[in-house]
C-alpha cells in the first residue's frame, strides 16, 4: 500500500460473508480461519488470498497478504480507518514503537503531563538510538514498557490521554 495512505472503510457482517465498503466501493467477501494468525480471503470473482495477521495492541493489527504488509487501527466497532505501513503514525492516544528494538530508558511516569515533542523514551535497534516523543500535549495515562525490554515494531509503548 502507498505509504501512509488513509482509507475510509466500513464493515458489515452478512451471514458468513462480510460486506466491506472501501471509499464507496462495496466488496462482498468471505473470510475463513486456517490456523493461528492465518486466514483465507475469498472474493466473488474467484480470487483467494492467504492472510497472515498479528494483533499488536488492543485496537491495532498488522496484516500481511501476498508479501505486502499493512497496519490497521480500529476506531469504532462499525467504522475503521486503514492506514499504510507507516507505523510511526501513532493513533491519537497511543505511542507505538516505529521499529522493533530494546527500550534503553523511559523519561516519563504515569500521571505526568507532557507537551508536544517532549521525549518519552529511548529505543535502541541494531546499535542506533531513537528518541520517541509525544506527538501532542496531554497526560501520560499508562507506560507499558520498562528499560531493557524488547518490543515489536508497532507495539504500544505509552498511552497519552
Amino acid at each position: 500500500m502507498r505509504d501512509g495512505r488513509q482509507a475510509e472503510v466500513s464493515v458489515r457482517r452478512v451471514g458468513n460473508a462480510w460486506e466491506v465498503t472501501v471509499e464507496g466501493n462495496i466488496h462482498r467477501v468471505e473470510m475463513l480461519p486456517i490456523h493461528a494468525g492465518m486466514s483465507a480471503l475469498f472474493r466473488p470473482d474467484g480470487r483467494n488470498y492467504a492472510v497472515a495477521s498479528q494483533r499488536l495492541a488492543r485496537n491495532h493489527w498488522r496484516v500481511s497478504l501476498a508479501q505486502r504488509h499493512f497496519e490497521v487501527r480500529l476506531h469504532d466497532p462499525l467504522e475503521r480507518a486503514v492506514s499504510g505501513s507507516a507505523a510511526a503514525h501513532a493513533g491519537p492516544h497511543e505511542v507505538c514503537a516505529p521499529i522493533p528494538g530494546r527500550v534503553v530508558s523511559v523519561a516519563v511516569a504515569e500521571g505526568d503531563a507532557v507537551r508536544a515533542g517532549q521525549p518519552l523514551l529511548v529505543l535502541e535497534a541494531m546499535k542506533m538510538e531513537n528518541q520517541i516523543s509525544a506527538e501532542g500535549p496531554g497526560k501520560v495515562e499508562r507506560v507499558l514498557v520498562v528499560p531493557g525490554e524488547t518490543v515489536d515494531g508497532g507495539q504500544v509503548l505509552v498511552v497519552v490521554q
Partner: protein
Amino acid sequence: MRILIANRGEIAVRLVRACRELGHESVGVYSDVDRTQPHVLAADLAVRIGPAPARESYLNQDTIIAAARSTGAGAVHPGYGFLAENAGFAKLVEASGLIWIGPPPDVIELLGSKTAAREVARSVGVPVVPGSDALPDAAAARAFAAEVGYPVLLKAVGGGGGKGMRIARSDAEVEEAFARAASEGKAFFADARVYAEKLIERPRHIEVQILGDRHGNLVHVGERECSLQRRHQKVFEECPSVAVDAALRARLGAAALAVAGTVGYRSAGTVEFLLAPSGEFFFLEVNTRLQVEHPITEAVYGVDLAQLMIREALGEALPLRQGDLAPRGHALECRVYAEDPLRGFAPSPGTIHHLERPDGPGVRVESGVREGSVVPLDYDPILAKLVVWAEDRPAALRRLRRALTEYRIAGIATTLPLFRLLLDVPEFTAGELHTGLLDELLSRGPVQSLEAAGDPALEEAAIVAAACLAAEEAEHLPRDGFESAEREGREWRLVGRSQLHGRGPR
C-alpha cells in the same frame, strides 16, 4: 566424529545438515539471545557460549574451545564470518588438538593481507588491478593516482565487505577518502594502514570456487557472478555468469588454481576477480572459507561443498576430477536480510510472526530462522538464502518469480520485496550487470514507488482483509466495564483455543 560448529543462523544449520549426512554428530553453540534458534535445536548437542554481544560469545575463542572440549568434539567448522578467516583461531584450534575444518592457518594468514595476496597473484603471472603497497599518507595516494589515473580506490589493508573502502575521483577527494578508509580500518579491523588501487568502472564481480586436499589434488568448480551489490555487500549471486563462456571459464579457473597452488591451498576457497567490460580480468583477493553463495555452485555442478570440506579436513582425498566437473543449468541466489528496502534498508530486528518458505521443483531455502524466531539486534542481518535452479537463466528467473510469490515473512521487514522488483528491471533480466548497478537503481528513485506500481486489486484486497480481521476480532473485545470484560474474556479464550486447534472448514 563430533564436530563443533562455531557459528549461528543459516550457515550453522547448513553445516549441521552436512555433518548429519556424513554420519557425524554436531555441536551447536549459542549466545543468550539465540537459545531457541533453529541452529541450536538442529544440532545434536548445544552449548551456551555467552551473552548476546558477538565478542562475548561467537567471537570468544577460549569459550568455544572449552565448548568443544566439554562435548568431546574432535573438529571445528567456523562457517563464514565471525572466526572463519581468523588465522589465530585456526591455530588455537589445532594447538588444542582439534581438527580445523578449513585451509591451513598460515595460508589464511598469508592471504588475509590484501597486499600480500596481490603479491602472490603477481608472482604467478595473474593480472591484478594496478595498486600500491600500504601508503604513508594522502600525498602518497595522490602520487599513485597521478601514475595510474583517476578514479582510484583507497582501501584499508585489513578491510573487506565494503568496510574501509573509499573512492577518490580527483586530487581534491583524496584527503578525506584516505582519512575515512584509515579510521574505518582502525575501527573495524584494528589496522589503520591504507593502500590505493586503480578503480575499474562498471566491472563484474566474478569469483572462482576452488577445492584442494592434502594429497595434491586441486580443482576449480567454475565461477559465480556476484555483481549485484549494495554498498559493496553482495545481495544476489548466480552461477554460471552470463559473461563467462567455456574458454574464459578455463582461463579464470587456471588463474585461480595458479594462485591457490603456489600457496599450498587446501579445503574450499574462493578466488575473486574483477571482469572489465573489455573482457580482461584482474585478481582481487582470496576468501579462505566456505562462501555464503556456495549453494548455487552446488546446484549447477552437482557437488556438496560443505561435505567435501569436512571430508578433506578428516584426511580424505578429493573425489573430484577436473574433467568430470561440468555445469548443468543455471542457479540464482537471493540473500534475505532483516533490512527494510522500503525504508532505506533500515535494520529490522524483531519477532517473525509468520513464515512460509517456498518449495517445489528447483527451489532450495537455507534458513536460519523459523516462525516465532526472534531476530536479535546483535548480529549480521542475514535470515536465509533463496536458491533456485532451472535448465537455463530465463527459466531460473521465471522460477524465482514463482518462488517469491510463495515466500512470506511477516512481523519484520526483509529484502524479499527488492528481488520482486529486480525481476522487472531490464538490465537485471538481460544480465547486463556490474558492481554499481544496484546502487544506481536504488538512487534512481525510492523503492516504494516501484513497489506501489504493484497490482492495485491486491491493495484493495488487503484493505478488505484487514477490515474483516479487525471487525472479527473487534467482536471479541471488551466493550464496557469490568463485568462485560469478564464475559468477553471467556469468549476470547474460546477463540484462542479453537485457533490453536487449527480447525478448518466444516
